[in-house]
């Protein structure tokens, strides 16, 4: 276990992200060097339009980097086949479900797809993993409900359970707390923290809940226009990283409380 503490799941080397079109390259951020270790909860914060989604899309192989490398379990991301990657990395996205007529159990069980046979039959081992995921996210009591019967908070737990049942070392969540009330925002992030600790998985999420993230995350990635910094939240507060997040005309960061205040 002690040895595992320092295992690096994902690492970037001088990564540049952005878009390439026929005419030109648009670089959104460059020189990104981050390391995600197992058992850690990592928050990614930054202003709107700064490139959080682009970074997540690059880390999850949805789009290609402009320069540099992404290494996942010490292997180049670009060389991973889709099915192999599905066994290392699972996602929770912001997009809506297509079929809300699936039951919670069926939806979570779809996380087993990379492991099941050609027609998708669940073995008893698969069922056990699905049940474990339901248990870890505290949704066993609703497992026979249909997804259209669920509240947003419940649905988010179900999507996290689906990612868990995919049994991957790394789970990446894109803004898992949007549309949720204050209580459920805290609930979901606390749940992620517990899961990272209990399962040893690496959990990376992007969020605008900076104050909650500061309280819960093992480390954070702060994206600003010209710099991407990754460190423990207390170190980031000390170095003044959060100050640089937003223009200073409206809000300021209060180092003592670890939250933003409106300028009076």
């Amino acid at each position, binding site marked *: 276990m002690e040895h595992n503490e320092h295992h690096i799941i994902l690492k970037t080397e001088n990564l540049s992200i952005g878009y390439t079109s026929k005419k030109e390259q648009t670089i959104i951020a460059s020189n990104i060097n981050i390391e995600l270790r197992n058992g850690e909860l990592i928050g990614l914060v930054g202003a709107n339009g700064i490139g959080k989604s682009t970074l997540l899309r690059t880390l999850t192989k949805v789009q290609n980097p402009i320069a540099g490398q992404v290494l996942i379990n010490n292997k180049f991301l670009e060389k991973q086949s889709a099915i192999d990657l599905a066994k290392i990395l699972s996602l929770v996205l912001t997009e809506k479900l297509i079929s809300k007529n699936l039951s919670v159990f069926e939806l979570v069980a779809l996380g087993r797809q990379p492991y*099941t046979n050609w027609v998708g039959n669940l073995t008893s081992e698969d069922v056990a993993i699905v049940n474990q995921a339901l248990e870890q996210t505290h949704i066993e009591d609703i497992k026979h409900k249909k997804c259209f019967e669920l509240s947003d908070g419940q649905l988010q737990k179900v999507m996290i359970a689906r990612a868990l049942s995919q049994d991957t070392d790394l789970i990446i969540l894109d803004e898992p707390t949007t549309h949720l009330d204050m209580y459920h925002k805290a609930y979901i992030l606390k749940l992620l923290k517990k899961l990272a600790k209990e399962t040893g998985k690496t959990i990376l999420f992007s969020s605008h809940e900076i104050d909650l993230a500061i309280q819960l995350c093992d480390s954070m990635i702060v994206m600003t226009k010209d710099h991407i910094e990754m460190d423990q939240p207390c170190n980031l507060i000390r170095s003044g990283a959060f100050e640089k997040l937003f223009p200073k005309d409206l809000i300021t960061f209060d180092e003592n409380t670890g939250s933003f205040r409106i300028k009076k």
Partner: protein
Amino acid sequence: MTPIKTYNVPFLVLAILLVLCFFINISLGSIYIPIKDVFNSLIGTETSQESWHYIITNYRLPKAVTAILVGSGLGISGLLMQTLFRNPLAGPFVLGISSGASLGVATIILGSGLFGTAFAAFLMSKWSIVIAASLGSFLLLFAVLITSLKVRDTMAILIIGLMFASITSSVVSVLSYFGSAEQLQQYIFWGFGSLGNLSWHELLIFSIIYSFGLLISIGSIKSLNTLLLGENYAKSLGLNIKRSRFAIIISTSLLAGTITAFAGPIAFIGLAIPHLTRQIFNTSNHKILLPAVFLFGSIIMLVCDSISQVPNSDLTLPINAITALIGAPVIIWLLVRKRKMIF
């Protein structure tokens, strides 16, 4: 407790209903044949009249088999399209298959005057209409497929299919404008659809192509279930989206394409059957839905055919009218009662 609901009882009921409808369909027709003789001719023993045996084996039996192939095939392709396009209004013909076939047939029937009379006789034969329908639907589908490979968004394929359909329907309008009244009537009759008139030889070719389509759809069950999460999730589960999409489209075109070629553009069944099936089988799991749609589509088509062949009379109503006449009110009723079509 089993984690995923099994539907043994409804499956059993549907299977029994299918066998029942099959026999009812065969025993009804323009002339009355006693049930005993229907059975006798099916198992190959002597019937009271030689002609009855002929009617059963060479007319009613192939027609009933055609009804099963048409109902199940259109139902399954409708199911595939609804899942692929995540749209409850999608049906087997959204890719332009029926409009392509109409164009092919319209060109043959309405344009035959242009080729001269000697050639026209050949063009009017049964096979030339089947070939024209296949060629037409294949060409249009090919055009939709080529464009679909260039677009990443699945919704765009739906719109492209609809646009191609509009183009062909306007070409058909132009052709009809120049066609004679007789030719127009013939074209309209083709549009009514017909389950009869297929020989065993034609039925063999029909069922071989149908089986390929069916096998591919069975092979797509897992990817269809994955697609229920949306394309991005499906991709993150290791699914090759382009390949699965291609397999689903090919399966639909084989099924709906041959059906349209041999039986004409049968409306409505492909759209309605998956929805009706979901009322009984309240699930999105294609492992259950696919066989359920197969059974249910076959049953509905056999019933529609029994109605269209008005018993004990020479009257045969257009099958296309019957399917919509029965199906459309059912869908409206479902929408009013359930208020939403969840899928």
